[in-house]
C-alpha cells in the first residue's frame, strides 16, 4: 500500500494578479508525497493559474513555493522540469507531426547526458544511451497500452488517445510530482474510466505524487485522496473527498447561495 507522507511541496500565501484581476488570493496548501490531490472549482476560480505557478509559468506577486524543503524565488518551467515536476496541458500540447514514440521520447530529453555532437554521430555511448531510453519509453507504452499507435503520427489520433500520449510524455520524465490539467476533458465515459485507471496505476506502481484539476465530480471523488476547492482565487475547502462534498461553502459555490 502506498503511504501518504510529508508535504513534498508547500505553497504559502500565493497571490497572483493580472492587472486589476486577482487570480489567486493568498492561497496556502501542501501537496503530500504519494497522494492524489484534486483541485476543483468553478470556471475562472484560478485552478490552472495555480498549476502554472507551481511549475514556474507564472510568478506570483507575493508568497512562496517550497519544493522538497527548498524555497524558490523566480523560477522557469525548465527548472521545475529538471527538479522533477512534469505536467500535461488542458489543451493537448504535443508535436502533432511526430509519432507517439517520438513524442514520448522527448520526455526523456532531460535525462540524456550526451551532448548534441554525440547524438548527431549516434555511435557508441550515444547509441547505448538511446537504447536505454527507448527501453524506458517502451515500458511506458506498455503501461499505457498504446502499442498499436507507437508509430502513428499524433495528429491523426483521436483526442482521448492524444491525452494518453501526453500523459506518457510526462511519465517519461520520471517526475516526482505530476501535474494534470483536466486530464479527462472531452472524453467519453469509457476513455474517462481508462484514464482514471491509469492515474491510479501511476500513483500505485511508480509512487508518483499527483495534483490534478478536474471538472467531473464523480472522477474527483473516486480517485483523489484529498480535494482542494478554489473559488474566485480563494481556497474555500481542503480535505478528504467526503468532507469536502458536504461542506456548505462548497455547495454554495457550486449551486449558488440560498436566498
Amino acid at each position, binding site marked *: *500500500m502506498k503511504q501518504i507522507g510529508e508535504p513534498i511541496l508547500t505553497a504559502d500565501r500565493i497571490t497572483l494578479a493580472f492587472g486589476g484581476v486577482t487570480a489567486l488570493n493568498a492561497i496556502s496548501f501542501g501537496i503530500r508525497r504519494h497522494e492524489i490531490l484534486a483541485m476543483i472549482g468553478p470556471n475562472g476560480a484560478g485552478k490552472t493559474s495555480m498549476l502554472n505557478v507551481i511549475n514556474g509559468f507564472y510568478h506570483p506577486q507575493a508568497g512562496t513555493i517550497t519544493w522538497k524543503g527548498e524555497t524558490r524565488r523566480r523560477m522557469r518551467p525548465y527548472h521545475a522540469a529538471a527538479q522533477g515536476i512534469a505536467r500535461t496541458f488542458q489543451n493537448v500540447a504535443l508535436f502533432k507531426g511526430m509519432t507517439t514514440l517520438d513524442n514520448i521520447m522527448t520526455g526523456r530529453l532531460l535525462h540524456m547526458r550526451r551532448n548534441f555532437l554525440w547524438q548527431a554521430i549516434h555511435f557508441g555511448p550515444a547509441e547505448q544511451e538511446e537504447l536505454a531510453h*527507448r*527501453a524506458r519509453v*517502451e*515500458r511506458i*507504452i*506498455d*503501461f499505457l*497500452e498504446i*502499442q*498499436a499507435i*507507437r*508509430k502513428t503520427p499524433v495528429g491523426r489520433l483521436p483526442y482521448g488517445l492524444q491525452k494518453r500520449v501526453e500523459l506518457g510524455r510526462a511519465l517519461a520524465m520520471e517526475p516526482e510530482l505530476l501535474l494534470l490539467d483536466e486530464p479527462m476533458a472531452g472524453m467519453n465515459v469509457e476513455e474517462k474510466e481508462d484514464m482514471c485507471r491509469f492515474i491510479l*496505476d501511476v500513483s*500505485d*506502481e511508480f509512487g508518483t505524487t499527483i495534483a490534478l484539476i478536474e471538472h467531473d465530480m464523480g472522477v474527483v471523488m473516486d480517485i483523489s485522496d484529498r480535494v482542494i476547492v478554489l473559488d474566485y482565487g480563494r481556497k474555500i475547502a481542503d480535505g478528504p473527498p467526503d468532507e469536502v462534498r458536504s461542506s456548505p461553502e462548497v455547495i454554495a459555490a457550486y449551486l449558488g447561495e440560498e436566498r
Partner: protein
Amino acid sequence: MTVDVLAPVQERQAGSAHTDRGGADTFPKLLLEHARVRPQRPANREKDYGIWQSWNWAEVAAEVEALACGLAAGGFRRGDKLAIIGDNRPRLYWAIAAAQALGGVPVPIYQDAIADEMAFVLDHAEVRFAVAEDQEQVDKLTEIRGRCPLLERVIFSDPRGMRHYDQPWLEDYAKAQERGRAFARTEPGFFGREIAKGRGGDTAIILYTSGTTGQPKGVVLSFDNIIGCATNAIAFEGLTDREEVLAYLPMAWIGEHIFSYAQAYCAGFCASCPESQATVMLDLRELGPTYFFAPPRIFESILTQVMIRMEDAGWVKRRLFRFFLDVARRIGPRLLARERVAVADRLLYRLGDLLVYGPLKNTLGFSRIRVAYTAGEAIGPDLFTFYRSLGINLKQLYGMTESSVFLCIQKHGAVKPDTVGAPIEGVEIRITEDGEVLFKSPGAFQCYYKNPEATAAAKRRDGWVHTGDSGFFDADGQLKILDRARDVGRLQGGAVFAPKFIENKLKFFPWIKEAVVFGDGRPFVAAFINIDLEAVGDWAERRNIAYASYQELAAEGAVYDLVQDCVERVNRGLAVEPTLAPSQIRRFLILHKELDADDGELTRTRKVRRRIIADRYEPLVAALYSGNATGRITTEITFEDGRKGQMRAELAIRDMDTGLPPAEPVPLRRAG
C-alpha cells in the same frame, strides 16, 4: 546415435517436409525431442516492449518444466484439469504443455467469455487449477469462485495491478516456476518420468464449443487424434520446421490450437504471439508468416483497408493499381495453379509484381506466405480471387472441433472459391440420403465430456461422425458445404434446397445487401432482394438516375436490370451442379424497404429471420408463386423515434429464364 539423429535433421533444415516424430506420441514428448534435436531453433516469440522476444526449444522445455513442477508442487495430479484463460501468450501455451506433461488436461477458455459462461465450463470440467493472463481474468475468476468450489489455485501471468491481491489461492506465474525449480532440484528426473507415463491414447485437451443453442459441449480429443491429424496436414502441405505462424486467434478455438500449438510441436516450427489484439495487423507485417489462417471477415477487412487507402493515393498510383489488378485477376490464379500462360502475360505479371503486388503483399505481411487458409463461412469469389491473383496461395479447408480440424483441404491446382476441397489422407467422407456430411478420421473426437447423449447423437456406433452440415461432392470430387442440415429443405420436386448457400451467392455481389430465398415445399425458388443503398446509389448517380428514397431507387427499372444480371449469374453457377440446378431462382422482386433488426427482420448480428419475413411479407410471397406481374403489400414500419407507420407499395416481379446454359459464373473457376 547422434549421427543417426543429425542426418535427417540437416535434411529437414534444408527445407524438406517431415512427419517423422521420433516415436513421440504426446506433445510433451515432442517438446523434449525438439529440445534435443533443434535446441537453438526458435519455438516461441512474443512482441513485448516493442521488440520480438524469443525462446528457443531448449528454453521452452525449461520453462514448461519449471511450470509443470510448480503445478505438481502445488498439488496438481494426473487427470486434473488446468483451465487456461487469456490472449495468446507464450506463457499460456507453455501452460498447455505443462498440464499435458503431468498427465493433466488443459481446458482453454475463451478470454472474452463472460463470468457466467466461464463458471459453467470451470464447473462442468471440474477444474482445480487455472492459469489466467492478467488482472481482468483474475477478477472474473474471483467473481465466480463461489460457484466453482473445486477451483483451488489460480496462477496469473501478468502481475500488473495485482499488487493488492493477497488472496492465498492466487500465485504469480514466475513464483510458481520458482517453486517448480526448487521442486525439480529435490526430485531430479521427475519431469521426464511424468512425461514418459503419457500415452497417445490419453486425453490431450478438452475444448468447449460455443454452442449457439444450449450449453457449450466439451469436446475431448486425444493425442492420437490431434497429432495424427496435424501430421497428415503437415505432410499434405509439405510444412517444415522453418515455418512462421502468428498465433492471434482465441486459444480456446480448435483452429488456433492446431495451427499454433499442435502443428508447431509436430513440425518444430515457431509460433509468434502479437503484442496485443490491437496490434495484430502491424505484427503480421513485421513477422511475415509463411503459414497463415484467417476467417473470411479478416480477409475482407484487409481488402477494404487497401481499397480505402488506394482511393486516397495519387492519380498515377491509382491508375497503376487498377491496371495491374486487372492483369492479376486475369493471370494470377492461372500462374498459381501452374497452368500454361503466354510469355507476354508472364512478363506483364512479373512487372506488376515488381510495381504493385510485391509492395502490397509486403505492406500486408503476406510476402512470405506459402500456404494460407480460410474457413468457417462462405468466402466471396471476388475476395478469394483478389488474394489468389496477387500470388497468395489462399485455400479453403473444412473441419471442426470434433474432427481436430482437417477433413478436407484444397489441393494445389484445384482451388475453387465455393468448395472446401477433397478429403485428405486418412479421412473418409460420406453423404447421407438427406445430404448430411458424415466422416471417419483419425482426428474424430473421443466424446463430449460428461455428455453421453450428445456423444451418441453425433458419433454413431458404426464409427461415422455426424457433422450436422449439409453438402455434396461436385464433379471434381471436391466437397461443397451448403448449410447447416436443419436449415436445408426440399423443393416440391424433391431436389435439395439450401437457402443460405443461394443467399450467400447473391450477397457476394456489391449491389445486393440482403437476400431471402423461398423454396422449401414449393415448386421453384423465388427471392426477395434488398439492394445496397450506397453501392447502387453511387451506381445510379453515375448514370444520372434520379431518386429520392430507397423505395424509389429499388423500384427503378434499371436497378431491376442490374439485379437481374446478378441473379442470372447466380443461376448459371447453380446450373453447373446437377444437385443445385433445380434451385435456380425463377422469380424475384426487390423489396421496397430495407430489412431491419429494429423491425425484427434481422437478428442483431444481421442474419435474416426467414420465418418472420415470410409471415410479414406473406402477400408478396404469394404473388411470387401466383404468376402475377406485381405484388401489393402494406407493411408496418417503426421509425427511428419509435413511432409506427404504414407503408404501401406495389412491387414489380421479374421472371427469370432458367434454361440458360450453365456458363462459368466467375472467372476463377477456370483456375480449377
